[in-house]
Protein backbone atom coordinates (compact mmCIF):
# COMPACT_ATOMS: atom_id res chain seq x y z
CA UNK A 1 0.00 0.00 0.00
CA UNK A 2 1.29 3.46 -0.82
CA UNK A 3 1.93 5.91 2.02
CA UNK A 4 -0.36 8.96 1.88
CA UNK A 5 0.58 12.39 3.32
CA UNK A 6 -2.60 12.30 5.42
CA UNK A 7 -1.51 9.14 7.22
CA UNK A 8 1.82 10.77 8.03
CA UNK A 9 0.17 14.05 9.07
CA UNK A 10 -2.09 12.30 11.56
CA UNK A 11 0.96 11.03 13.45
CA UNK A 12 2.83 14.33 13.44
CA UNK A 13 2.45 16.83 16.39
CA UNK A 14 0.07 18.99 14.23
CA UNK A 15 1.20 22.14 16.08
CA UNK A 16 2.59 23.92 13.00
CA UNK A 17 5.55 25.00 15.16
CA UNK A 18 7.70 25.65 12.04
CA UNK A 19 10.80 24.20 13.75
CA UNK A 20 11.43 22.02 10.73
CA UNK A 21 11.50 25.05 8.45
CA UNK A 22 8.10 24.31 6.91
CA UNK A 23 5.01 26.45 7.32
CA UNK A 24 2.71 23.61 8.33
CA UNK A 25 2.92 20.02 9.52
CA UNK A 26 1.01 19.00 6.39
CA UNK A 27 3.66 20.38 4.06
CA UNK A 28 6.30 18.63 6.20
CA UNK A 29 4.37 15.39 5.70
CA UNK A 30 4.48 15.86 1.91
CA UNK A 31 8.21 16.57 1.98
CA UNK A 32 8.82 13.53 4.19
CA UNK A 33 7.27 11.27 1.57
CA UNK A 34 9.19 12.97 -1.23
CA UNK A 35 12.30 12.50 0.87
CA UNK A 36 13.17 16.18 0.81
CA UNK A 37 12.97 16.25 4.63
CA UNK A 38 13.97 13.72 7.25
CA UNK A 39 11.94 12.65 10.26
CA UNK A 40 14.75 14.00 12.50
CA UNK A 41 13.95 17.53 11.25
CA UNK A 42 10.82 17.48 13.42
CA UNK A 43 12.56 18.10 16.74
CA UNK A 44 9.49 18.15 19.07
CA UNK A 45 8.73 14.59 18.03
CA UNK A 46 12.01 13.42 19.52
CA UNK A 47 12.26 15.83 22.45
CA UNK A 48 8.79 15.60 23.94
CA UNK A 49 7.88 12.34 25.62
CA UNK A 50 4.17 12.46 24.79
CA UNK A 51 5.01 11.88 21.12
CA UNK A 52 7.00 8.68 21.79
CA UNK A 53 4.17 6.37 20.68
CA UNK A 54 3.52 8.41 17.56
CA UNK A 55 7.23 8.39 16.75
CA UNK A 56 7.32 4.59 16.82
CA UNK A 57 4.28 4.42 14.52
CA UNK A 58 5.83 6.94 12.15
CA UNK A 59 9.08 5.02 11.98
CA UNK A 60 7.15 1.87 11.12
CA UNK A 61 5.05 3.69 8.54
CA UNK A 62 8.05 5.23 6.84
CA UNK A 63 10.08 2.03 6.81
CA UNK A 64 9.45 1.39 3.05
CA UNK A 65 11.05 4.78 2.31
CA UNK A 66 14.40 3.30 3.27
CA UNK A 67 13.95 0.35 0.91
CA UNK A 68 12.69 2.35 -2.07
CA UNK A 69 14.92 3.59 -4.83
CA UNK A 70 15.29 7.30 -5.50
CA UNK A 71 12.28 7.36 -7.78
CA UNK A 72 10.14 5.71 -5.14
CA UNK A 73 10.13 2.34 -6.88
CA UNK A 74 9.87 -0.71 -4.65
CA UNK A 75 10.44 -4.16 -6.13
CA UNK A 76 9.29 -7.22 -4.23
CA UNK A 77 11.27 -10.08 -5.71
CA UNK A 78 9.25 -12.67 -3.83
CA UNK A 79 6.16 -11.76 -5.84
CA UNK A 80 7.86 -11.46 -9.24
CA UNK A 81 7.54 -14.30 -11.73
CA UNK A 82 9.87 -12.81 -14.32
CA UNK A 83 7.25 -12.26 -17.03
CA UNK A 84 9.16 -9.22 -18.30
CA UNK A 85 6.04 -7.09 -18.85
CA UNK A 86 7.67 -4.17 -16.99
CA UNK A 87 10.86 -4.44 -19.04
CA UNK A 88 8.98 -4.38 -22.36
CA UNK A 89 6.42 -1.67 -21.56
CA UNK A 90 8.95 0.86 -20.20
CA UNK A 91 8.91 3.85 -22.60
CA UNK A 92 12.58 4.59 -21.95
CA UNK A 93 13.50 1.03 -22.88
CA UNK A 94 11.40 1.22 -26.04
CA UNK A 95 13.13 4.39 -27.22
CA UNK A 96 16.67 3.37 -26.28
CA UNK A 97 16.52 -0.27 -27.29
CA UNK A 98 13.77 -0.65 -29.92
CA UNK A 99 15.13 -3.90 -31.40
CA UNK A 100 15.72 -5.48 -28.00
CA UNK A 101 13.41 -4.65 -25.14
CA UNK A 102 11.03 -2.60 -27.30
CA UNK A 103 10.38 -5.72 -29.37
CA UNK A 104 9.88 -8.01 -26.41
CA UNK A 105 13.36 -9.52 -26.19
CA UNK A 106 15.95 -9.13 -23.47
CA UNK A 107 18.03 -5.94 -23.27
CA UNK A 108 20.77 -5.35 -25.83
CA UNK A 109 22.04 -2.26 -24.00
CA UNK A 110 24.26 -2.51 -20.92
CA UNK A 111 22.33 -0.22 -18.61
CA UNK A 112 18.58 -0.80 -18.74
CA UNK A 113 16.42 0.51 -15.91
CA UNK A 114 15.01 -2.93 -15.14
CA UNK A 115 16.26 -6.35 -16.12
CA UNK A 116 15.16 -9.92 -15.46
CA UNK A 117 17.94 -11.64 -13.55
CA UNK A 118 17.61 -15.23 -12.33
CA UNK A 119 13.89 -15.12 -13.01
CA UNK A 120 13.08 -11.96 -11.05
CA UNK A 121 13.17 -8.27 -11.88
CA UNK A 122 16.17 -6.22 -10.70
CA UNK A 123 16.66 -2.45 -10.76
CA UNK A 124 19.87 -1.66 -12.66
CA UNK A 125 19.99 2.00 -13.71
CA UNK A 126 17.40 4.05 -11.86
CA UNK A 127 18.76 7.41 -13.05
CA UNK A 128 17.27 6.77 -16.50
CA UNK A 129 13.71 6.42 -15.19
CA UNK A 130 11.32 9.17 -16.27
CA UNK A 131 10.32 9.65 -12.63
CA UNK A 132 13.82 10.88 -11.82
CA UNK A 133 15.36 14.35 -12.15
CA UNK A 134 13.88 17.80 -12.57
CA UNK A 135 11.58 17.23 -15.54
CA UNK A 136 10.06 14.15 -14.05
CA UNK A 137 6.85 12.53 -15.22
CA UNK A 138 4.72 10.37 -12.96
CA UNK A 139 4.99 7.37 -15.26
CA UNK A 140 3.52 4.13 -13.87
CA UNK A 141 3.78 1.87 -16.95
CA UNK A 142 5.76 -0.86 -15.17
CA UNK A 143 3.48 -0.94 -12.13
CA UNK A 144 0.30 -0.91 -14.22
CA UNK A 145 1.40 -4.04 -16.05
CA UNK A 146 2.55 -6.06 -13.09
CA UNK A 147 -0.39 -8.31 -12.17
CA UNK A 148 1.29 -9.71 -9.05
CA UNK A 149 2.01 -6.25 -7.57
CA UNK A 150 5.73 -6.97 -7.38
CA UNK A 151 6.35 -3.37 -8.46
CA UNK A 152 5.01 -0.53 -6.32
CA UNK A 153 5.59 3.17 -5.97
CA UNK A 154 5.70 5.06 -2.71
CA UNK A 155 3.26 7.70 -3.86
CA UNK A 156 0.81 5.13 -5.12
Amino acid at each position, binding site marked *: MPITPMEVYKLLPKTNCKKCGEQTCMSFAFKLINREKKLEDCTPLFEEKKYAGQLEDLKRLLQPLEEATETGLIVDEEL*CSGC*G*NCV*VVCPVHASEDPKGMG*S*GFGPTIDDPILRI*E*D*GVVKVIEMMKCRRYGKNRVLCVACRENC*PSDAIRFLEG
Partner: protein
Amino acid sequence: MPTCTGCSCLCPDIVIKDSKVFNACRKGSAIFKHCKENRAEPTISGEKVDFGKALEKAVEIISSSEKLAVYGLDTIPLEAQEIAIKLAEKKKAYIDDSSAFCLGDFVEMVLKGILPTTTLDEVKSNAYVIFYWGTDPYNSLSRHLSLYTYYPRAGKRQRGYEEDRYLVVVDVRKSHTAKLVKKNAKFIKVDSDEALIEGFLSTMDGKAGKYYEETGRILKEMQRGGFNAIFGGLGLKYGLNGNYEKFVEMVKRMNELTQVYFIPAGFHANMRGFNELMFEKTGFVNRYSFESKKSSPEYEFSELVRNDSVDTVLVIGSDPANSLPFDVLQKLREKRLVLVDPKKSLTSKIAEVVVPSAITGIDQGGTMVRSDGVRIEIEPLWEAEWTDEAILKELLGEVK
Protein backbone atom coordinates in the same frame (compact mmCIF):
# COMPACT_ATOMS: atom_id res chain seq x y z
CA MET B 1 22.27 -18.10 -27.56
CA PRO B 2 20.76 -20.71 -25.23
CA THR B 3 17.07 -21.53 -25.70
CA CYS B 4 14.86 -22.12 -22.69
CA THR B 5 12.88 -25.37 -22.78
CA GLY B 6 10.75 -24.63 -19.74
CA CYS B 7 7.53 -24.39 -21.74
CA SER B 8 6.36 -24.25 -25.33
CA CYS B 9 7.33 -20.56 -25.68
CA LEU B 10 10.93 -21.73 -26.26
CA CYS B 11 12.33 -18.25 -25.48
CA PRO B 12 15.32 -17.74 -27.78
CA ASP B 13 17.08 -14.85 -26.01
CA ILE B 14 18.43 -16.34 -22.80
CA VAL B 15 21.82 -15.01 -21.68
CA ILE B 16 24.00 -16.83 -19.14
CA LYS B 17 26.82 -14.76 -17.68
CA ASP B 18 28.80 -15.07 -14.44
CA SER B 19 26.53 -17.93 -13.29
CA LYS B 20 23.48 -15.69 -13.62
CA VAL B 21 20.59 -16.32 -16.00
CA PHE B 22 19.22 -13.25 -17.76
CA ASN B 23 15.86 -12.72 -19.47
CA ALA B 24 14.37 -16.11 -18.56
CA CYS B 25 11.30 -16.19 -16.33
CA ARG B 26 11.35 -17.77 -12.88
CA LYS B 27 10.56 -21.22 -14.26
CA GLY B 28 13.11 -21.01 -17.07
CA SER B 29 15.91 -19.63 -14.96
CA ALA B 30 15.42 -22.41 -12.41
CA ILE B 31 16.02 -25.00 -15.14
CA PHE B 32 19.35 -23.40 -16.00
CA LYS B 33 20.40 -22.60 -12.44
CA HIS B 34 19.64 -26.01 -10.96
CA CYS B 35 20.57 -28.14 -13.96
CA LYS B 36 23.31 -29.97 -12.06
CA GLU B 37 21.32 -30.60 -8.89
CA ASN B 38 19.17 -33.62 -8.16
CA ARG B 39 20.34 -35.50 -11.25
CA ALA B 40 19.14 -39.05 -11.68
CA GLU B 41 21.52 -41.96 -11.18
CA PRO B 42 21.43 -45.33 -12.92
CA THR B 43 19.56 -47.69 -10.58
CA ILE B 44 17.98 -51.14 -10.61
CA SER B 45 15.28 -51.63 -7.94
CA GLY B 46 16.65 -48.62 -6.06
CA GLU B 47 20.26 -49.92 -6.00
CA LYS B 48 22.88 -47.80 -7.72
CA VAL B 49 24.55 -49.63 -10.63
CA ASP B 50 26.70 -48.92 -13.70
CA PHE B 51 25.02 -47.06 -16.52
CA GLY B 52 25.64 -50.03 -18.85
CA LYS B 53 23.96 -52.44 -16.45
CA ALA B 54 20.89 -50.24 -16.07
CA LEU B 55 20.58 -49.98 -19.83
CA GLU B 56 20.97 -53.77 -20.18
CA LYS B 57 18.25 -54.35 -17.61
CA ALA B 58 15.99 -51.85 -19.40
CA VAL B 59 16.49 -53.77 -22.65
CA GLU B 60 15.71 -57.03 -20.84
CA ILE B 61 12.49 -55.70 -19.26
CA ILE B 62 11.23 -54.14 -22.48
CA SER B 63 12.13 -57.27 -24.50
CA SER B 64 10.25 -59.54 -22.13
CA SER B 65 7.17 -57.31 -22.05
CA GLU B 66 4.02 -58.39 -23.83
CA LYS B 67 1.97 -55.26 -23.52
CA LEU B 68 4.15 -52.18 -23.41
CA ALA B 69 3.12 -48.55 -23.03
CA VAL B 70 5.49 -45.71 -23.97
CA TYR B 71 4.67 -42.48 -22.17
CA GLY B 72 6.14 -39.02 -21.59
CA LEU B 73 8.19 -37.72 -24.53
CA ASP B 74 7.10 -34.09 -24.21
CA THR B 75 10.41 -32.68 -23.06
CA ILE B 76 12.74 -34.49 -25.45
CA PRO B 77 13.69 -33.31 -28.96
CA LEU B 78 11.98 -34.48 -32.16
CA GLU B 79 14.93 -36.71 -33.11
CA ALA B 80 14.54 -38.73 -29.89
CA GLN B 81 10.72 -38.78 -30.15
CA GLU B 82 11.03 -40.29 -33.61
CA ILE B 83 13.09 -43.19 -32.28
CA ALA B 84 10.68 -43.69 -29.35
CA ILE B 85 7.80 -43.96 -31.83
CA LYS B 86 9.82 -46.50 -33.85
CA LEU B 87 10.44 -48.46 -30.65
CA ALA B 88 6.71 -48.49 -29.86
CA GLU B 89 6.01 -49.64 -33.41
CA LYS B 90 8.59 -52.43 -33.16
CA LYS B 91 7.05 -53.68 -29.88
CA LYS B 92 3.48 -53.12 -31.16
CA ALA B 93 3.02 -50.99 -28.05
CA TYR B 94 0.69 -48.23 -26.89
CA ILE B 95 2.09 -44.72 -27.11
CA ASP B 96 0.76 -41.62 -25.40
CA ASP B 97 1.87 -38.34 -23.93
CA SER B 98 0.41 -35.65 -21.70
CA SER B 99 -1.44 -34.06 -24.66
CA ALA B 100 -4.24 -36.57 -24.03
CA PHE B 101 -5.33 -34.50 -21.02
CA CYS B 102 -3.59 -31.31 -22.16
CA LEU B 103 -4.24 -29.43 -25.40
CA GLY B 104 -3.88 -32.37 -27.80
CA ASP B 105 -7.42 -31.88 -29.13
CA PHE B 106 -6.67 -28.33 -30.22
CA VAL B 107 -3.34 -29.32 -31.79
CA GLU B 108 -5.19 -32.02 -33.73
CA MET B 109 -7.80 -29.54 -34.99
CA VAL B 110 -5.06 -27.14 -36.03
CA LEU B 111 -3.08 -29.88 -37.81
CA LYS B 112 -6.21 -31.09 -39.61
CA GLY B 113 -6.93 -27.55 -40.74
CA ILE B 114 -10.26 -27.35 -38.91
CA LEU B 115 -9.12 -24.21 -37.13
CA PRO B 116 -7.10 -21.61 -39.08
CA THR B 117 -3.74 -20.94 -37.48
CA THR B 118 -0.75 -18.65 -37.75
CA THR B 119 2.65 -18.22 -36.11
CA LEU B 120 3.54 -16.22 -33.03
CA ASP B 121 5.84 -14.01 -35.14
CA GLU B 122 2.86 -13.05 -37.31
CA VAL B 123 0.82 -12.35 -34.18
CA LYS B 124 3.64 -10.17 -32.89
CA SER B 125 3.77 -7.99 -35.99
CA ASN B 126 0.09 -7.94 -37.01
CA ALA B 127 -2.40 -9.00 -34.37
CA TYR B 128 -4.80 -6.45 -32.95
CA VAL B 129 -7.37 -8.30 -30.84
CA ILE B 130 -5.66 -10.97 -28.74
CA PHE B 131 -7.86 -13.46 -26.90
CA TYR B 132 -6.70 -15.52 -23.94
CA TRP B 133 -9.52 -17.97 -23.49
CA GLY B 134 -9.38 -20.26 -20.48
CA THR B 135 -5.71 -19.70 -19.82
CA ASP B 136 -3.61 -17.65 -17.42
CA PRO B 137 -0.36 -17.08 -19.33
CA TYR B 138 1.08 -14.84 -16.62
CA ASN B 139 1.50 -17.93 -14.47
CA SER B 140 1.85 -20.77 -16.96
CA LEU B 141 3.69 -19.12 -19.88
CA SER B 142 5.15 -16.06 -18.22
CA ARG B 143 6.77 -14.42 -21.22
CA HIS B 144 3.99 -15.18 -23.71
CA LEU B 145 2.47 -11.69 -23.42
CA SER B 146 5.71 -9.73 -23.28
CA LEU B 147 7.66 -11.63 -25.93
CA TYR B 148 5.08 -12.69 -28.52
CA THR B 149 1.67 -11.14 -28.23
CA TYR B 150 0.37 -8.14 -26.29
CA TYR B 151 3.33 -5.96 -25.33
CA PRO B 152 6.02 -6.09 -28.05
CA ARG B 153 6.19 -3.38 -30.69
CA ALA B 154 6.83 -4.98 -34.08
CA GLY B 155 5.83 -4.83 -37.74
CA LYS B 156 2.50 -3.06 -38.15
CA ARG B 157 2.02 -2.66 -34.41
CA GLN B 158 4.62 -0.08 -33.44
CA ARG B 159 2.62 2.05 -31.05
CA GLY B 160 2.61 -0.36 -28.14
CA TYR B 161 -0.12 -2.12 -26.25
CA GLU B 162 -2.20 0.91 -25.33
CA GLU B 163 -3.08 1.85 -28.90
CA ASP B 164 -2.15 -1.03 -31.17
CA ARG B 165 -3.46 -4.03 -29.28
CA TYR B 166 -6.76 -5.06 -27.76
CA LEU B 167 -6.63 -7.70 -25.04
CA VAL B 168 -9.53 -10.00 -24.29
CA VAL B 169 -9.30 -12.35 -21.32
CA VAL B 170 -11.99 -14.98 -20.87
CA ASP B 171 -11.85 -16.87 -17.60
CA VAL B 172 -14.00 -18.16 -14.77
CA ARG B 173 -12.20 -16.00 -12.22
CA LYS B 174 -10.13 -12.84 -12.15
CA SER B 175 -6.75 -14.41 -12.86
CA HIS B 176 -3.43 -12.59 -12.83
CA THR B 177 -3.69 -12.13 -16.59
CA ALA B 178 -7.18 -10.68 -16.18
CA LYS B 179 -5.70 -8.04 -13.88
CA LEU B 180 -3.83 -6.68 -16.92
CA VAL B 181 -7.13 -5.73 -18.51
CA LYS B 182 -7.26 -1.95 -18.36
CA LYS B 183 -7.65 0.52 -21.18
CA ASN B 184 -8.40 -1.01 -24.60
CA ALA B 185 -9.12 -4.41 -23.17
CA LYS B 186 -11.96 -6.59 -21.93
CA PHE B 187 -12.26 -9.23 -19.27
CA ILE B 188 -15.24 -11.53 -19.61
CA LYS B 189 -16.02 -13.62 -16.56
CA VAL B 190 -17.89 -16.65 -17.81
CA ASP B 191 -19.80 -19.41 -16.11
CA SER B 192 -20.03 -21.42 -19.30
CA ASP B 193 -17.84 -21.08 -22.38
CA GLU B 194 -20.71 -22.21 -24.56
CA ALA B 195 -22.83 -19.27 -23.43
CA LEU B 196 -20.16 -16.86 -24.60
CA ILE B 197 -19.77 -18.70 -27.92
CA GLU B 198 -23.57 -18.49 -28.34
CA GLY B 199 -23.28 -14.81 -27.50
CA PHE B 200 -20.76 -14.22 -30.27
CA LEU B 201 -22.84 -16.23 -32.74
CA SER B 202 -26.05 -14.34 -32.00
CA THR B 203 -24.26 -10.98 -32.19
CA MET B 204 -23.00 -12.01 -35.63
CA ASP B 205 -26.60 -12.91 -36.52
CA GLY B 206 -27.61 -9.39 -35.55
CA LYS B 207 -29.43 -10.48 -32.38
CA ALA B 208 -28.71 -9.43 -28.84
CA GLY B 209 -27.74 -12.59 -26.95
CA LYS B 210 -25.94 -13.09 -23.70
CA TYR B 211 -22.83 -10.93 -23.19
CA TYR B 212 -24.07 -8.72 -26.05
CA GLU B 213 -22.27 -5.62 -24.78
CA GLU B 214 -18.88 -7.28 -24.73
CA THR B 215 -19.27 -9.34 -27.89
CA GLY B 216 -20.52 -6.39 -29.92
CA ARG B 217 -17.59 -4.23 -28.93
CA ILE B 218 -15.05 -7.00 -29.43
CA LEU B 219 -16.38 -7.89 -32.90
CA LYS B 220 -16.18 -4.25 -33.89
CA GLU B 221 -12.58 -4.06 -32.67
CA MET B 222 -11.76 -7.28 -34.51
CA GLN B 223 -13.03 -5.86 -37.77
CA ARG B 224 -11.02 -2.71 -37.14
CA GLY B 225 -7.81 -4.66 -36.53
CA GLY B 226 -8.10 -7.03 -39.48
CA PHE B 227 -5.81 -9.63 -37.89
CA ASN B 228 -6.76 -11.28 -34.63
CA ALA B 229 -5.63 -14.26 -32.62
CA ILE B 230 -7.32 -16.57 -30.13
CA PHE B 231 -5.15 -18.43 -27.64
CA GLY B 232 -7.15 -21.30 -26.21
CA GLY B 233 -6.12 -23.00 -23.01
CA LEU B 234 -7.19 -25.86 -20.81
CA GLY B 235 -10.12 -23.86 -19.45
CA LEU B 236 -11.60 -23.75 -22.93
CA LYS B 237 -10.94 -27.45 -23.52
CA TYR B 238 -12.57 -28.62 -20.31
CA GLY B 239 -15.26 -25.94 -20.55
CA LEU B 240 -16.40 -27.28 -23.89
CA ASN B 241 -16.00 -30.87 -22.73
CA GLY B 242 -15.26 -32.29 -26.16
CA ASN B 243 -18.02 -30.44 -28.03
CA TYR B 244 -15.93 -28.21 -30.24
CA GLU B 245 -18.43 -27.78 -33.11
CA LYS B 246 -19.86 -24.51 -31.84
CA PHE B 247 -16.40 -23.07 -31.20
CA VAL B 248 -15.22 -24.07 -34.67
CA GLU B 249 -18.37 -22.55 -36.15
CA MET B 250 -17.76 -19.32 -34.20
CA VAL B 251 -14.18 -19.03 -35.52
CA LYS B 252 -15.43 -19.78 -39.04
CA ARG B 253 -18.14 -17.13 -38.82
CA MET B 254 -15.66 -14.62 -37.41
CA ASN B 255 -13.41 -15.33 -40.38
CA GLU B 256 -16.18 -14.22 -42.72
CA LEU B 257 -15.95 -10.79 -41.11
CA THR B 258 -12.23 -10.51 -40.53
CA GLN B 259 -9.11 -12.64 -40.10
CA VAL B 260 -9.10 -14.71 -36.93
CA TYR B 261 -6.51 -17.34 -36.11
CA PHE B 262 -6.33 -19.92 -33.38
CA ILE B 263 -3.17 -21.01 -31.58
CA PRO B 264 -3.15 -23.43 -28.63
CA ALA B 265 -1.88 -21.35 -25.70
CA GLY B 266 0.93 -23.51 -24.47
CA PHE B 267 2.08 -26.75 -22.92
CA HIS B 268 5.25 -28.80 -22.39
CA ALA B 269 8.23 -27.74 -24.47
CA ASN B 270 7.85 -30.28 -27.28
CA MET B 271 4.32 -31.64 -26.87
CA ARG B 272 3.28 -30.29 -30.25
CA GLY B 273 6.36 -31.94 -31.78
CA PHE B 274 5.19 -35.36 -30.62
CA ASN B 275 1.66 -34.64 -31.85
CA GLU B 276 3.00 -33.61 -35.27
CA LEU B 277 5.22 -36.69 -35.60
CA MET B 278 2.35 -38.98 -34.65
CA PHE B 279 0.01 -37.16 -37.02
CA GLU B 280 2.43 -37.56 -39.93
CA LYS B 281 2.94 -41.25 -39.20
CA THR B 282 -0.49 -42.43 -38.13
CA GLY B 283 -3.05 -39.67 -38.69
CA PHE B 284 -3.71 -39.44 -34.95
CA VAL B 285 -1.96 -37.16 -32.46
CA ASN B 286 -1.90 -39.33 -29.31
CA ARG B 287 -3.44 -42.32 -27.47
CA TYR B 288 -2.31 -44.68 -30.20
CA SER B 289 -1.94 -48.44 -30.27
CA PHE B 290 0.42 -49.92 -32.84
CA GLU B 291 -1.28 -53.28 -32.33
CA SER B 292 -4.79 -52.26 -33.35
CA LYS B 293 -3.47 -49.36 -35.45
CA LYS B 294 -5.93 -46.84 -34.12
CA SER B 295 -6.36 -44.15 -31.51
CA SER B 296 -8.97 -44.41 -28.79
CA PRO B 297 -9.75 -42.76 -25.43
CA GLU B 298 -9.19 -46.19 -23.85
CA TYR B 299 -5.55 -45.97 -24.90
CA GLU B 300 -4.95 -42.91 -22.75
CA PHE B 301 -2.01 -43.71 -20.50
CA SER B 302 -3.86 -43.37 -17.19
CA GLU B 303 -6.68 -45.59 -18.50
CA LEU B 304 -4.21 -48.23 -19.67
CA VAL B 305 -2.62 -48.34 -16.22
CA ARG B 306 -5.94 -48.25 -14.41
CA ASN B 307 -7.42 -51.09 -16.47
CA ASP B 308 -4.25 -53.21 -16.29
CA SER B 309 -4.06 -53.24 -20.09
CA VAL B 310 -0.27 -53.07 -19.90
CA ASP B 311 2.37 -55.02 -17.99
CA THR B 312 5.37 -52.80 -18.66
CA VAL B 313 5.72 -49.04 -18.89
CA LEU B 314 8.52 -47.05 -20.48
CA VAL B 315 8.43 -43.45 -19.26
CA ILE B 316 10.67 -40.95 -21.03
CA GLY B 317 11.26 -37.45 -19.65
CA SER B 318 8.15 -37.27 -17.49
CA ASP B 319 7.01 -37.70 -13.89
CA PRO B 320 3.62 -39.45 -14.08
CA ALA B 321 3.73 -40.52 -10.43
CA ASN B 322 3.62 -36.87 -9.51
CA SER B 323 1.22 -35.55 -12.14
CA LEU B 324 -1.38 -38.31 -12.53
CA PRO B 325 -4.16 -39.19 -10.05
CA PHE B 326 -3.35 -41.25 -6.97
CA ASP B 327 -5.20 -44.40 -8.07
CA VAL B 328 -3.08 -44.40 -11.25
CA LEU B 329 0.05 -44.15 -9.11
CA GLN B 330 -1.09 -47.12 -7.02
CA LYS B 331 -1.60 -49.20 -10.15
CA LEU B 332 1.61 -47.89 -11.69
CA ARG B 333 3.59 -49.37 -8.79
CA GLU B 334 2.41 -52.85 -9.80
CA LYS B 335 3.81 -52.50 -13.33
CA ARG B 336 7.38 -53.01 -14.44
CA LEU B 337 8.53 -49.44 -14.87
CA VAL B 338 11.53 -48.27 -16.88
CA LEU B 339 12.30 -44.57 -16.55
CA VAL B 340 14.54 -42.52 -18.86
CA ASP B 341 14.82 -39.11 -17.21
CA PRO B 342 17.52 -36.62 -16.30
CA LYS B 343 16.24 -35.79 -12.81
CA LYS B 344 15.29 -37.61 -9.63
CA SER B 345 11.55 -37.56 -9.16
CA LEU B 346 8.71 -39.44 -7.51
CA THR B 347 8.60 -41.73 -10.54
CA SER B 348 12.33 -42.49 -10.24
CA LYS B 349 11.64 -43.70 -6.68
CA ILE B 350 9.14 -46.31 -7.81
CA ALA B 351 10.83 -47.25 -11.11
CA GLU B 352 12.42 -50.67 -11.45
CA VAL B 353 15.15 -49.28 -13.69
CA VAL B 354 16.26 -45.66 -14.00
CA VAL B 355 18.38 -44.70 -17.00
CA PRO B 356 19.65 -41.13 -16.51
CA SER B 357 19.47 -38.99 -19.62
CA ALA B 358 20.13 -35.35 -20.54
CA ILE B 359 18.16 -32.09 -20.30
CA THR B 360 17.26 -30.57 -23.65
CA GLY B 361 18.81 -27.13 -24.01
CA ILE B 362 21.39 -27.85 -21.31
CA ASP B 363 23.29 -31.03 -22.16
CA GLN B 364 21.55 -32.19 -25.31
CA GLY B 365 20.47 -30.33 -28.43
CA GLY B 366 17.88 -31.04 -31.09
CA THR B 367 14.75 -29.69 -32.71
CA MET B 368 11.64 -28.70 -30.79
CA VAL B 369 8.27 -27.45 -31.96
CA ARG B 370 6.92 -24.24 -30.45
CA SER B 371 3.23 -23.94 -29.55
CA ASP B 372 2.51 -22.36 -32.97
CA GLY B 373 4.23 -25.13 -34.93
CA VAL B 374 7.52 -23.37 -35.73
CA ARG B 375 10.50 -25.69 -35.46
CA ILE B 376 13.29 -24.32 -33.28
CA GLU B 377 16.85 -25.65 -33.32
CA ILE B 378 18.14 -25.95 -29.78
CA GLU B 379 21.85 -25.63 -29.08
CA PRO B 380 23.11 -27.42 -25.99
CA LEU B 381 25.38 -25.64 -23.49
CA TRP B 382 27.52 -28.77 -23.43
CA GLU B 383 27.07 -32.28 -24.78
CA ALA B 384 26.25 -35.15 -22.41
CA GLU B 385 27.62 -38.64 -23.05
CA TRP B 386 24.18 -40.25 -23.01
CA THR B 387 21.45 -38.19 -24.60
CA ASP B 388 17.83 -39.29 -24.94
CA GLU B 389 18.50 -39.97 -28.62
CA ALA B 390 21.51 -42.21 -27.88
CA ILE B 391 19.68 -44.13 -25.12
CA LEU B 392 16.58 -44.71 -27.27
CA LYS B 393 18.72 -45.73 -30.26
CA GLU B 394 20.43 -48.31 -28.07
CA LEU B 395 17.04 -49.57 -26.81
CA LEU B 396 15.62 -49.72 -30.33
CA GLY B 397 18.64 -51.68 -31.56
CA GLU B 398 18.80 -54.17 -28.69
CA VAL B 399 15.14 -54.74 -27.82
CA LYS B 400 13.61 -57.88 -29.24
